[in-house]
């Protein structure tokens, strides 16, 4: 199995760290993983994206043309990546601030209003975990226990008390995500 994922949004939405948690989760279940960020100043407020590949085989190119799954958290990212989802693939978007919506009919489109939920429930710090929960509901590519192991691995010791909060966020995301027809 190989899963090629792009996660894109504004800097500060936790795009890179969501990718990192996914990569660590793959590592925990013995997969080959690669995590390739757009890097530099664009991390600070501009648009950031990260390509994550999880595979049971050696990964060739860390750079991709098309993706099995795209998670887009802002309008420019939707415009850039919708066309690059493979037919039959998955597109997940957070509808906050969107004025144009996905149009493709040959892919599975899901909406997760995680930003709106977070603003109402003060869970902005775990926004990316809510979205990751949504992803795992519709694409169970890694097991929750491996996500938590990966999270533990990637977080410094001083943040380990936040693990419970993050696990809760995953479950919130699983409830929030909705298929768009």
């Amino acid at each position, binding site marked *: 199995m190989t899963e090629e994922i792009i996660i894109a949004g504004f800097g500060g939405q936790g795009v890179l760290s969501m990718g990192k948690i996914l990569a660590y989760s793959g590592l925990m279940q013995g997969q080959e*993983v*690669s995590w390739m960020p757009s890097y530099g100043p664009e991390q600070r407020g501009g648009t950031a994206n990260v390509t994550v590949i999880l595979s049971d085989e050696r990964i060739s190119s*860390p750079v991709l043309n098309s993706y099995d799954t795209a998670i887009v958290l802002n309008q420019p990212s939707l415009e850039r990546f919708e066309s690059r989802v493979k037919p039959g693939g998955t597109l997940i978007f957070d509808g906050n601030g969107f004025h144009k919506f996905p149009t493709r009919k040959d892919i599975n489109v899901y909406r997760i209003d995680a930003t709106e939920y977070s603003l109402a429930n003060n869970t902005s710090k775990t926004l990316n975990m809510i979205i990751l929960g949504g992803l795992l509901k519709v694409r169970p590519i890694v097991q929750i226990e491996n996500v938590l192991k990966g999270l533990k691995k*990637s977080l410094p010791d001083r943040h380990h008390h936040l693990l419970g909060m993050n696990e809760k966020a995953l479950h919130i995301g699983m409830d929030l995500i909705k298929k768009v027809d």
Partner: protein
Amino acid sequence: MSDSKKHTHEEVRLMKGNEAIAHAAIRCGCDGYFGYPITPQSEIMETLMDEEPWNSTGMVVLQAESETSSINMVYGAASCGKKSMTSSSSPGVSLMQEGISYIAAGELPCLIVNVMRGGPGLGTIQPSQADYFQAVKGGGHGDYKLITLAPASVQEMADHTVLAFDLAFKYRTPAMILADGIIGQMMEKVILPPFQPRLTEEEIRTRMPWATLGKPASRKPNVITTLSLDAQEMEDTNIRLQAKYREIEKNEVLFEEVECEDADYLIIAFGTCARVSQKAVDMARAEGIKVGLIRPITLFPFPTDIISKYADKVKSMLTIEMSAGQMVEDVRLAVNGRVPVEFYGRMGGMNPSPDGVYNALMTKLVNK
């Protein structure tokens, strides 16, 4: 050191290529790192500063005032027989060229890491391979060469750090790791090399009798200098250097050969471009097109012989680079006109995509 920093060497870890270089340097007994921040490789010094190896192995880590200073600090450290290194990205490595020429002329071992970004000029911070000429043809003044390694994975960033030092000391010559921004910034699984202790001063005095550590009464002064006002003396130095480079060419060529046995077409690419090309090879093979890939691991010495061998077997070749076409010249020299050698590349921080390579393969080679 916190518990999270204690790892056994068997452990599989996930980290950036830049971080892997820093960890590998500490583990292989590096004595000194001297650097100046520049994207996309600043994680090397950041990781070293965070690890504080001066408290564990005794390694010195210093942020210099410029790349000029960094490379000259390396020159001073290497003159003492110490295992020393610097790292930078393209514009910074340009600034180091004078010092690199001195280090090559002084026949000193050291490691220089270039995590390339798009140029010319200040350019971009996005990945590039356009410093190939600078690295393998001798970027500074005079006739010299750098042993040049081209990692294509995070694992190789770690492994090449160890290998580059070994080769540099074996031949008393500077070695370069020529990576691109993608390899520096991406995270992959890596198994770090085992810990080797730093050499003691006694070991340095025995193995590197030329080192300037202070002159005991028993020997004459050691002098590291690159000046010979006598032209004949300078030519003799050049002859010695050239003989060394021929020896390196004979002994140290490294490359990876993928699906070349039955190939009608051959792609040649290094670093990230080799990874991208691998995917294009898979796409082409799925269509029944017999394509192979040669990935040079050493760029100097260049794998001329293997490419020459395939020039008698394949119909044509394609070189893929993140540049306007630099390594392609060395491929053409190896092929010497026997088959067409085409080129496809992206420049200035753009990188070829698997589709781009596949399309180039079809239009420039297969359907030509």
